[in-house]
């Protein structure tokens, strides 16, 4: 039994009630395959993937449907075998209810996989080759950020990192998909971690798990026994312990400077589910086509963890799992940072860690009241910002004032709004401000480009005018030349000389 190092609970952040059990303790379920799968072309940060299949084409499970466009992009694979119906649009799982392009597949129910091209021993591969396979498998950060994993690992490799931090904290209430994965497949996860170590050249990996998951801790420690370079660390159960910055600080004891990335300090952070996906891709040759998510909330009849193929409509999931009342909110993700869904006809994507159907009592919504400047938000903020001051400036449309107070450092974790007695929509203010600043920057770039275009046009017009003038001058000289070379021809018509004079 190894010595455990337990950290004291920090003062920042909040500690909402867990509400993970009994869902976390129930065994993983696999729901029946839906008839249709709606696979969006963008389930990652970066450029949407470009489809390489056509309507009517038959595809196998795991077949490449869309290839990455550009460096910051990821591949999309078929979550089940069947026929591509169309490449159309589906409502994005986003509060805006905007449409996004998606490939619609009609499943044939046979679940036939593509041929595996997994190597016999992935540990024989070079780091570049491992990365290439990870990219080819379309793996993105499954903790919710959905950053293309191969790119991140490549960055780590080039930066020469020495430590990999594996995020098993799962700090959001209700969610237990990572917990379930760690309890059921600890060896597979650690295999993936070791592959990541190979891909980045790091020497050791620290797996951080919150103290409210004793079974997962035990399972992972047991599986890590044969590998001295893999160590499990128990983290205090506090939200947002899973934030990269705070995980880093807790596990390395160093505060991450504001403009630094963890790779600058020799560390790279990845989620446990991403490690598992790496294992699946390199050992079995299976690209990322399904994931475990938590169905929870007061309105769900049978809470628990389920494994679903990417592209399953939330509506289908809820039909299979059943709601026992109309939820006040339907959320994709956790209650603190998740996205509220406009309706249930949205697909599950790679970054979906959970689906919550919350009752009105659970949302504890209150009408916003005036701010009483109690500073509870400032005390709760894990980044030590002053949320009420920033919100006041944003309310007065002073976006630069809000930036000066540290808006760019805001994680949008939701701790401030969680504790605010006045129920102020603080996170919405900050998200609005960040969006407005981005729009302002885009508008500035647009204005710049318009200025360049207008200048180019002015130059074009000037050039054309110049050319016209030169051409006119040339024609004039040519005519003059012709007139001198060619003397006046004999004219029988007595009025001809006058006509000639007119022409000249």
């Amino acid at each position, binding site marked *: 039994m190894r010595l455990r190092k337990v950290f004291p609970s920090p003062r920042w952040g909040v500690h909402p009630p867990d509400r993970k059990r009994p869902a976390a303790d129930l065994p993983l379920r696999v729901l029946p395959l839906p008839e249709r799968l709606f696979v969006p072309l963008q389930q990652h940060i970066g450029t949407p993937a470009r489809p390489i299949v056509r309507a009517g084409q038959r595809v196998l499970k795991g077949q490449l449907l869309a290839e990455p466009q550009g460096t910051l992009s990821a591949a999309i694979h078929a979550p089940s075998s069947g026929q591509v119906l169309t490449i159309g649009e589906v409502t*994005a799982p*986003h509060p*805006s209810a*905007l449409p*996004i392009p998606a490939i619609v597949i009609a499943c044939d129910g046979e679940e036939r996989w593509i041929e595996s091209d997994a190597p016999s021993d992935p540990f024989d591969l070079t780091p570049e080759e491992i990365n290439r396979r990870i990219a080819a498998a379309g793996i993105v950060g499954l903790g919710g950020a959905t950053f293309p994993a191969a790119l991140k690992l490549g960055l780590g490799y080039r930066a020469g990192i020495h430590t990999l931090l594996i995020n098993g904290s799962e700090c959001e209430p209700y969610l237990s998909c990572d917990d379930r994965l760690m309890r059921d497949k600890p060896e597979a996860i650690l295999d993936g971690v070791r592959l990541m170590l190979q891909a980045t050249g790091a020497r050791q990996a620290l797996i951080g798990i919150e103290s409210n998951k004793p079974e997962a801790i035990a399972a992972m420690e047991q599986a890590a026994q044969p590998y001295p370079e893999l160590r499990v660390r128990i983290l205090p159960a506090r939200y947002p312990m899973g934030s990269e910055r705070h995980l880093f600080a807790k596990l390395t004891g160093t505060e991450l400077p504001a403009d630094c990335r963890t790779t600058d300090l020799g560390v790279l952070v990845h989620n446990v589910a991403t490690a598992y996906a790496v294992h699946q891709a390199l050992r079995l040759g299976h690209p990322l086509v399904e994931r475990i998510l938590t169905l929870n909330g007061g309105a769900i009849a049978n809470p628990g963890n389920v494994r679903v193929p990417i592209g399953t409509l939330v509506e289908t999931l809820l039909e299979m799992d059943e709601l026992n009342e109309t939820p006040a909110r339907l959320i994709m993700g956790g209650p603190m940072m998740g996205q509220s869904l406009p309706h249930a006809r949205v697909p599950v994507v790679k970054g979906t860690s959970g689906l919550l159907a919350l009752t009105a009592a659970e949302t504890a919504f209150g*009408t*916003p*009241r*005036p*701010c009483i400047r109690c500073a509870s938000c400032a005390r709760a903020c894990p980044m030590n910002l002053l949320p009420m001051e920033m919100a006041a400036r*944003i*309310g007065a*449309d002073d*976006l*630069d004032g809000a930036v000066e107070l540290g808006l760019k450092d805001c994680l949008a974790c939701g701790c401030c709004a969680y504790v605010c007695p*006045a129920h*102020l*929509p603080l996170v*919405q*203010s900050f*998200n*609005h401000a960040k*969006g*407005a600043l*981005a*729009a*302002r920057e*885009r*508008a*500035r770039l*647009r*204005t710049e*480009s*318009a*200025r360049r*275009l*207008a*200048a*180019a*046009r002015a130059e*074009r017009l000037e050039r054309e005018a110049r050319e016209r003038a030169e051409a006119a001058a040339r024609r004039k000289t040519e005519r003059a030349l012709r007139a001198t070379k060619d003397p006046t021809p004999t004219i029988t018509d007595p009025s001809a000389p006058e006509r000639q004079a007119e022409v000249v």
Partner: protein
Amino acid sequence: MITLDLMTAILSLTGLGLILGLGLGLAARVFAVAEEGQVSALLALLPGTNCGQCGFAGCLGAAEALASGRAGPRLCPAGGATLVPLLAKHLGLELEDAGHDEGPRIAVIKESLCTGCCRCLKVCTTDGIVGAAKQIHVVLREACMGCGACAERCPTGAIQLEPMPVSLQHWIWPKPKPELALR
């Protein structure tokens, strides 16, 4: 006695007020800050397309109007709502409530009405229309500043100014209504 005191008080304070007020007004004239660099700085903020929608002689005319105070920061339709606070900040003006802004607009050519006359092409301030004689024209979204010159010129009315379509990447959370939602 009381009346004399009262009169003295009134006269002295009034006199003081008058003198000081005149002094302030004089100082505002005499010591006014020269604003030469301001025109070029304002010009740099404006789009520079000289579309004339503001009613002044090109962007230079608008910059001069802004600097001299003849026009407010909301004068430029092509710059849109994002330009207004930038201009206001530069001029040191307070903006009242922003008012409702539908966002940037771009010209869209209705293909069924386009005759390929090429008139819009010639007046586009950023050369943002692609087309040839007797061919259907199209407006390049990235180049369009929403000045409306093409819409005015089109003989068949095929061009309309429409709000820029919102994509998921560019969607912004609406600003929450002030907590005086109790009003």
